[in-house]
């Protein structure tokens, strides 16, 4: 009565086969990560020292440390965040909490999707035209950071919108029914319950901003500049561009040096990601509904 038919056998075989196939695909994802990290640590690891982090490049960038690039990247990221986070969160709040479904909202959403799809080199040229030339910021941290901000704005908006929309709609209705305005509802119920999700999105944005090269190449990042920037109107070195330069543009760079720079850069990004993951885990632990 319970004897399997030929069709049962076939289904079971297929199911095993498909499962194996998918497992394989998924496992292959580990390979590039392990290879990249492994090679970087193996070849770049010996380069890392306090001196490497805290001194300037010397001998035409063939020796010395990476301090100006490290500090420059921090400047670029911080200024970019100062521009993109307030704008992004305000836009997301509008789209998620206030906007009704009309032509304006649809145009804004379309603009965000398209902004996310613009190649980074096009953003770079836009930055040159808009910030460097039109607004006369010159090639500076300000111009480069604003270019980065425009580029990462969609990330902030989408992450914030998702965080806001994870707060159940019933909470909003309950508040409105008490006579709360939309803003009172946002401030007392929606934001306190989504702020952590928003922060997670922001941290992810940081890691992305830190690694970008093209948008800052023509707008504010310098080939070689052995000084620390003093204001947002200065040019600066940056980790990503520095890596590109010493790997391809400068003769006589010792082979291990680019590995060391890449290791520092990827460590910065991974540290940010780890922070973001830790944050999310912490939040999930104290989820309130």
């Amino acid at each position, binding site marked *: 009565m319970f004897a399997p038919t030929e069709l049962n056998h076939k289904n079971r075989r297929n199911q095993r086969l498909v499962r194996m196939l998918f497992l394989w695909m998924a496992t292959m994802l580990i390979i590039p990560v392990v290879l990249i990290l492994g090679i970087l640590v193996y070849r770049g690891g010996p380069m890392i020292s306090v001196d490497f982090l805290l001194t300037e490049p010397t001998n035409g960038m063939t020796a010395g440390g990476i301090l100006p690039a490290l500090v420059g990247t921090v400047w670029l990221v911080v200024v970019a965040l100062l521009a993109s986070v307030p704008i992004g969160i305000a836009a997301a709040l509008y789209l998620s909490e206030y906007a009704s479904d009309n032509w304006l909202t649809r145009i804004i959403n379309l603009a965000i999707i398209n902004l996310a799809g613009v190649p980074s080199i096009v953003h770079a040229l836009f930055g040159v035209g808009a910030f460097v030339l039109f607004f006369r910021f010159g090639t500076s941290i300000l111009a480069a950071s604003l270019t980065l901000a425009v580029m990462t704005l969609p990330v902030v908006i989408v992450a914030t919108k998702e965080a806001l929309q994870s707060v159940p709609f019933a909470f909003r*209705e*309950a508040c*409105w*029914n*008490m006579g*709360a305005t939309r803003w009172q509802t946002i401030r007392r119920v929606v934001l*306190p319950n989504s702020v952590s999700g928003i922060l997670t999105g922001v941290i992810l944005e940081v890691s992305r901003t830190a690694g970008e090269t093209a948008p800052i190449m023509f707008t504010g990042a310098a080939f070689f500049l052995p000084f620390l920037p003093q204001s947002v109107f200065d040019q600066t070195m940056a980790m990503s561009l520095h890596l590109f330069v010493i790997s391809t543009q400068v003769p006589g760079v010792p082979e291990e040096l680019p590995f060391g720079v890449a290791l520092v850069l990827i460590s910065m990004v991974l540290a940010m990601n780890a922070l973001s993951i830790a944050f999310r885990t912490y939040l999930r632990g104290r989820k309130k509904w």
Partner: protein
Amino acid sequence: MVAETPVTASASNARVQTEPTPPFVEVQDLSIHYGGKKILSGVSFDIYENEIFGIIGPANSGKTSFLRALNRMDMFTPGMNVTGTIKIDGHDIQRWKNVYALRRRIGVVFPLPVGLPLSVYDNVALAPRLAGIKRRSELDIIVERCLTRAALWEEVKDRLDSLGSLLSGGQQQRLTIARALSQDPDLLLLDEFSIAVDPVTTMRIEDVLKELKHEITIVLVTNLVQQTRRLSDRTAFLLSGELVEVGETAELFEGKVRDQRTLGYLEGRFG
């Protein structure tokens, strides 16, 4: 002076007898559409002060939409279109400029309890805080009074700081009622409040409602015909957006109906 007093008294008595108190809520020719779909078509009825007004009817008869129209939630509901007039206390609510002030006078309890992710205390203190009350001592009094009236105080008085959303379903529903009462409303709207509540708690809440109606006018939307029989003074029967009948609850259940469909629904022959 002394001689005049009885004259005044009898005059006011006479006035009460000749002019019945105006209805607290007047609904005239109210229609509600969602997009192109008609939910409620031209209903008119009155709700009197300090009564429990039951609204019964099967799903999709427009009960919940009526409640939404009552506190102008149509403003926050895309596609919802309300025509006709609703007057509360003599004022046309469509012309009420500050809808937030209107909603503050109307407490709402939903079918599923909504414990906001705040502490028990903050859940109940939210509406007073929104209304601008900041003094802790004042809030303490309101919180205790509302939780007591909602028959929840004894169970939560030792854990006012724990999360409201972590209470049991029945407790959360009473918390929702306490929150609605914290607005000090003139009108309390209950939308099938007992769906997620056990029978014992339901009975306790029903007792609370019977007490409350001396101070507040209550509109009770329910799927449970027996609940409206136990609680409401008058009952309206809605069917597919049409008002079939409004009448004294006792009379309806005695079979004194004008429309045979009412009798059929009350006796459970359809619905």
